[in-house]
């Protein structure tokens, strides 16, 4: 069967992922927040005996190397053998979409424009002449609406037609043919000094990438692009040219945008549309108000957290009851290695499921809903000032919020920040954002045995500990945080199907990585316990527990081994103490235990994800330091409280 590889490209919130959903069914993520899909999503579908492989790229404004999203897209463009690109354009601001169309055509990739939000534009009094645009650019332009599937089959036909006869060609011949098709598209003619520089550089370009493209990328100092160069001498050539024309890169982008608005103006007709929708403006007047904005954002987060705790507790109780009765039928058997493995493995699975379903999935569902409506970007604007004070970019809000669910997917989400330094700084704060397991400790141990007020004070302490840490780190590593430059999408009705699909993708890490590791951690713990290893550490580490933290020496077992399986921390504490906690521990001890067990990178799973993102040394360093910090902080606080 013939295969085509088609790239989907567009600005954030332009409906890229919705289009992919309309093309291949609900198998991909859709988002209403700029830059959520940091990875490329793939989906295949067969149309008229041709298999089309769609690659969905993250939303970007231009092709360059300045953010992780742009780098990912650039890689897909130049490393995959792309047969064509669909550029999803926004009819309400055509010139902005055309900017990228020119860049795709410079890369000699056949392009098709899918024009989205045509109806929305008409409501705003904008009409676009697709046929005229088609003629001007010499590429197909198709109005679409992914929700009603309007234009979707026309789009598929256009893809197939872009190289119709070529489908019978051999692969190398096909490539040549594709380039021919691409070359027919519109190309910008830059100013003489730019064209001269392009000519000069392109004579020395080698390799399969188009010479003009290479020259332009080098002139724009796209450093990420340098790895595709076969002849590195041209970098020097471009630098030489910069001496003469220091603002050549600026001139290039000015020409691109100028050309884009010139063409957009030619095909756009403005008319008065009567009344514009004002509901969105009214919401923004509250959500972006200098006082109400931050307040409502806080209220929203508080409401989400509350709903989560309430509903999560409800579901967890039912699930726990079920698994407990299942476990007790095993537990009666003797202590052989098989029963240990079985019982502990099952306990791990039970813990995983009883957290996954209520806390993680429910939370990501709510978050996805807020994202697709358009609330999330407003929240970022409201929280960015606070985050900036901590030395974090506004976008760090997303991974930090995700961490309230589970640290593992949150670690992955740090990728949407632009520098490794920012990513690591954000990840280091996961030590203080209680994930659902840690919330369960605070609620289940501290709250259950010490009262709600004590539990609340643990949360407050966590927050304070995090603030001190963040300011410390900010001093230490001097992150120059990225300035806020964020588009706020109009409010849209969310598509539930898309919200579910997205929550599932975020859940995937949890299901495929976290739950198996929870089971393994549970088993490892059971075996260590059976062999008596858990008791070995009690004595040598008693200075920490009894002297520093003022806790019974055995409580080191849940503190340390909780790292293998955070959700068993509570259960372990009950079993090592061998009785009713409230009669053995004072409220202060419960509080100290709560702090010591929740501050820090929580578990071996989070550590694993951190290693994957930041390397072994940094991840270990962070984990050990943050846990030590937690124990130090808990002991210090105890002393202060005792002093008063």
């Amino acid at each position, binding site marked *: 069967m013939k295969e085509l590889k088609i790239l989907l490209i567009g600005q954030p919130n332009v409906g890229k992922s919705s289009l992919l959903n309309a093309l291949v069914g609900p198998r991909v993520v859709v988002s209403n927040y700029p830059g959520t899909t940091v990875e490329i999503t793939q989906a295949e579908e067969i149309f008229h005996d041709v298999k089309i492989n769609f690659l969905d790229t993250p939303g970007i*404004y231009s092709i360059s190397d300045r953010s992780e999203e742009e780098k990912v897209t650039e890689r897909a463009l130049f490393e995959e053998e792309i047969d064509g690109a669909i550029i999803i354009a926004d009819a309400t601001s055509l010139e902005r979409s055309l900017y990228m169309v020119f860049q795709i055509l410079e890369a000699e990739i056949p392009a098709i424009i899918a024009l989205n939000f045509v109806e929305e534009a008409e409501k705003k009094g904008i009409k676009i002449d697709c046929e005229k645009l088609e003629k001007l650019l010499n590429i197909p332009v198709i109005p679409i609406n992914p929700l009603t599937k309007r234009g979707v089959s026309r789009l598929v036909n256009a893809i197939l037609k872009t190289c119709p006869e070529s489908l019978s060609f051999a692969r190398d011949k096909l490539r040549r043919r594709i380039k021919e098709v691409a070359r027919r598209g519109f190309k910008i003619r830059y100013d003489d000094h730019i064209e001269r520089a392009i000519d000069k550089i392109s004579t020395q370009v080698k390799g399969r990438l188009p010479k003009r493209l290479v020259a332009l990328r080098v002139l724009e100092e796209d450093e990420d692009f340098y790895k595709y160069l076969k002849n590195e001498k041209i970098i020097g050539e471009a630098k030489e040219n910069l001496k003469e024309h220091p603002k050549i890169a600026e001139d290039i982008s000015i020409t691109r945008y100028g050309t884009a608005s010139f063409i957009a103006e030619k095909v756009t007709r403005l008319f008065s549309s009567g009344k514009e929708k004002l509901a969105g403006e009214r919401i923004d007047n509250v959500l972006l108000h200098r006082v109400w904005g931050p307040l409502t954002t806080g209220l929203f987060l508080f409401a989400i957290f509350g709903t989560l705790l309430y509903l999560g507790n409800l579901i967890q109780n039912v699930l726990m009851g079920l698994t407990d009765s299942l476990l007790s039928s095993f537990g009666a058997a003797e202590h052989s290695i098989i029963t240990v493995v079985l019982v502990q493995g099952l306990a791990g699975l039970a813990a995983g499921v009883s957290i996954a379903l209520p806390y993680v999935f429910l939370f990501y569902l709510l978050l996805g809903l807020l994202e697709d409506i358009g609330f999330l970007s407003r929240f970022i604007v409201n929280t960015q000032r606070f985050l900036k004070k901590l030395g974090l970019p506004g976008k760090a809000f997303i991974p930090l919020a995700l961490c309230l669910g589970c640290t593992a997917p949150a670690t992955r989400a740090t990728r949407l920040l632009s520098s490794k330094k920012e990513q690591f700084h954000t990840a280091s704060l996961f030590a203080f954002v209680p994930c659902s397991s840690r919330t369960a400790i605070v609620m289940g141990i501290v709250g259950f045995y010490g009262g709600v007020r004590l539990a609340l004070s643990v949360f407050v302490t966590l927050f304070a500990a995090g603030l001190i840490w963040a300011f410390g780190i900010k001093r230490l590593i001097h992150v120059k945080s990225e300035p806020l430059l964020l588009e706020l999408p109009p409010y849209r009705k969310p598509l539930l199907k898309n919200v579910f699909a997205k929550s599932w993708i975020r859940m995937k890490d949890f299901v495929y990585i976290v739950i198996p590791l929870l089971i393994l951690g549970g088993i490892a713990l059971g075996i260590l316990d059976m062999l008596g290893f858990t008791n070995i550490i009690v004595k040598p580490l008693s200075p920490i527990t009894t002297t520093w933290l003022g806790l019974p020496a055995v409580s080191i077992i849940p503190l340390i081994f909780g790292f293998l399986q955070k959700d068993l921390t509570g259960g372990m504490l009950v079993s090592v103490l061998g009785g009713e906690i409230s009669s053995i521990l004072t409220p202060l001890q419960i509080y100290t235990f709560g702090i010591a067990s929740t501050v820090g990178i929580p578990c071996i799973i989070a550590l694993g994800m951190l290693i994957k993102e930041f390397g072994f040394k940094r991840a270990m360093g962070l984990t050990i330091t943050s846990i030590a910090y937690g124990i130090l902080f808990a002991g210090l606080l105890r002393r202060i409280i005792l002093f008063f």
Partner: protein
Amino acid sequence: MTKEGDILKIVREDILRTLGEEETEEVSVDSIKSDINVSDPFISKAIKQLNGEGLIKYHNNFISLTERGKENARDIVKKHRILENYVKETKNGRDAHKVAHILEHYVSKEVIDNIKKLSTLKSAGVPLTELECNGKGIITDIVFSDYGVFERMVSMGIFLGERIRITNEISDSIVVKIGNKKIALNKDIAENIRIYKNERT
């Protein structure tokens, strides 16, 4: 218009402008060829077209403007001057001619009109932060040393000559509306966007 047609359009405008700027009546085709940096067939074709439309006279490898051509050339030269003056004012003259040269073929009429207004207004060029909430203005310049931020802004539609309105103000950032899009940005970025203030509405 195809790609070829586009080049032809630019070449035609360049020929008319060169003739309009030249002191002498007649200009040799060779000097046109050395002035305009495209392959010869385009120039020959453009000359043929202009000649056919009665905008220039072609004689013995020399060309000159007809009366109708002079009118056309005057417009083009004027457009070029507006842009050149504008760019000179805002960019300290460096590369002014070149930027004007690019823009004249591409920038839309509305943008040109706005720029023309701007370059005649002395008050042009206050930082965006000086605009009050709900105030309107036209972007006259973007001053940045970092090309990355500059290109990001341009590709998001923050461009010279565009109308801009501040819709909300929150602590250290503002929300602006350009066209149909809302963009949130820090005040330190807004400092670098120069605008001409419109009357408050």
